[in-house]
């Protein structure tokens, strides 16, 4: 299989949360990123964080389905990490130029902008979920995050039947919607 086809497969794996694809990408790319971060006044914990964020950027791109591989996966990951790390360094006011002057990265600003937006949405949703209170939080978590069946949820939460649980779920959703949109509009 050609390199390109293989990388495409990996990304398709990422999109469906395939553990093996994630592991393969980690194995192929993590050492490079770690070396880069260590060379540029970071430590391994920071390398792990940055790589993780890059993996999420990659995931978002893979899920969106618009992933055109106009460069090697390795180059892309490197570029994202380099950009993320620069930002982090500047925030901490620790940036004093790169250790290497070779910048063979591809432009990723657009992707990172989308990622920032997604990230802030993620936080908004997380906050909203934390604010709706129990049992709503657990109920929605069980259904939408853990993908449990309504039957199972009804039993677990002590509803007489799945229909009751369903009614409750929609009530909870209405609350979530209210809180989420209130925050969303504030944030805009």
């Amino acid at each position: 299989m050609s390199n390109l086809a293989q990388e495409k497969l990996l990304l398709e794996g990422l999109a469906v949360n395939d553990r093996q694809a994630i592991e393969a990408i980690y194995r192929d790319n993590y050492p490079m990123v770690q070396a880069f971060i260590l060379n540029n006044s970071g430590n391994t914990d920071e390398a792990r964080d940055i790589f993780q964020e890059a993996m999420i950027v990659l995931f978002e791109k893979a899920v969106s389905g618009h992933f055109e591989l106009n460069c090697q996966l390795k180059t892309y990951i490197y570029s994202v990490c380099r950009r993320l790390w620069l930002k982090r360094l500047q925030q901490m006011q620790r940036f004093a130029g790169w250790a290497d002057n070779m910048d063979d990265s591809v432009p990723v600003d657009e992707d990172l902008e989308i990622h920032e937006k997604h990230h802030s949405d993620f936080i908004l949703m997380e906050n909203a979920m934390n604010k709706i209170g129990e049992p709503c939080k657990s109920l929605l978590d069980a259904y939408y995050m853990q993908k449990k069946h309504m039957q199972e949820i009804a039993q677990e939460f002590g509803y007489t039947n799945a229909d009751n649980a369903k009614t409750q779920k929609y009530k909870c959703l209405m609350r979530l919607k209210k809180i989420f949109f209130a925050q969303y509009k504030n944030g805009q």
Partner: protein
Amino acid sequence: MDEVLLLEAVERYLKGEMPAQEKIFFEELRKTKPEVDQLVVEHTFLFHELDRHAGVKAYKHSLYEVETKLTEEGIISKQQLQGKAKIVFLWKKYKRNIAVAASIAGIMSITTAGLIIAYTQKVNESNKEDLIGKWENTNTKIDKLTDKIQTSTTATPTFTTTPDYRATGFLIDGKGYLVTNAHVVNRLKTPFYVVNNKGDYFNAETVYTDNNSDLAILKINDTSFKTIPNLPYSIRKNDLDLAEEIYTLGFPRNVIVYGEGYLSAKSGNDGDSTAYQLTVAVNPGNSGAPVLNKNGEVVGIITSKEKNADGVVYAAKSMNIYKLLEAIKKTSDTQNIKLPYNSGLRGLDRSQQVKKMEEYVFMVLGN
């Protein structure tokens, strides 16, 4: 139209569970009534957000798990720079700060050197005395959290007598090494026991005690104890920030008890920089209980609380554990303790974290 009903309809529509006839009606409704259409758009957006949220959450969890696995294999190295490499690394990281600091230090040291030399002798002596006085004072004020067990506790078969004291400890190495408080092991007579959440008793012995940080390391010495391969939590090396959320698991009763709080000060009793001050509910028996942050890292170990003030709890910083291990390495080479280095609890809900954690927190019992 009832918004709840509409919400349900939108969900079915998005999932493609809507019968064809209803679908036509639904689409017609959207066209004719703009307010309905507006709601549908909002609901659709909410469902999309929820869906994406779930996706990212699940994915993040996979990431953590892969990370843990690869760290064990050594592909991802943990923070372990030593000797020259570390100096180079620190130099690179801080060279700008060092330059500034050095120039300030130079000026300061020249102007104040004389004064310092003149006063050093006196100041040191008076400080020392004060400290000793205070130590006794504060010592009496502080409640050690080792609990006296009430006689009503049912004796277990392994005990010839009822245990007098109860405290908490937790695993730092699956081979059976636990951390607890120094005042716990000082109080207990050997032999003492540790009990896991399933109620299994194991013989344990002290490996090392450090009265300064009030920490001790125990080893389970029991053939019935089976090595636990990976502990899901890591031990934090850096200081926490003020107001960070923390929680603790311990044995103030004969069952494990969860407590939640926050970091109130970065130093402990009497300005002790090896400890934190926390605000969290603890009671006798919580001695040695692990303190974790939201990422499931062990950040400290409960040691004591102020007797005359409410809610002032002290915990040794987790960094001390690393120091203890260094000290052990120097005194003996038979103990090969490997700390867990990656938190598999990250990204999990609190209740799921606690569920995983429970297994590794032990009750320490003895006379």
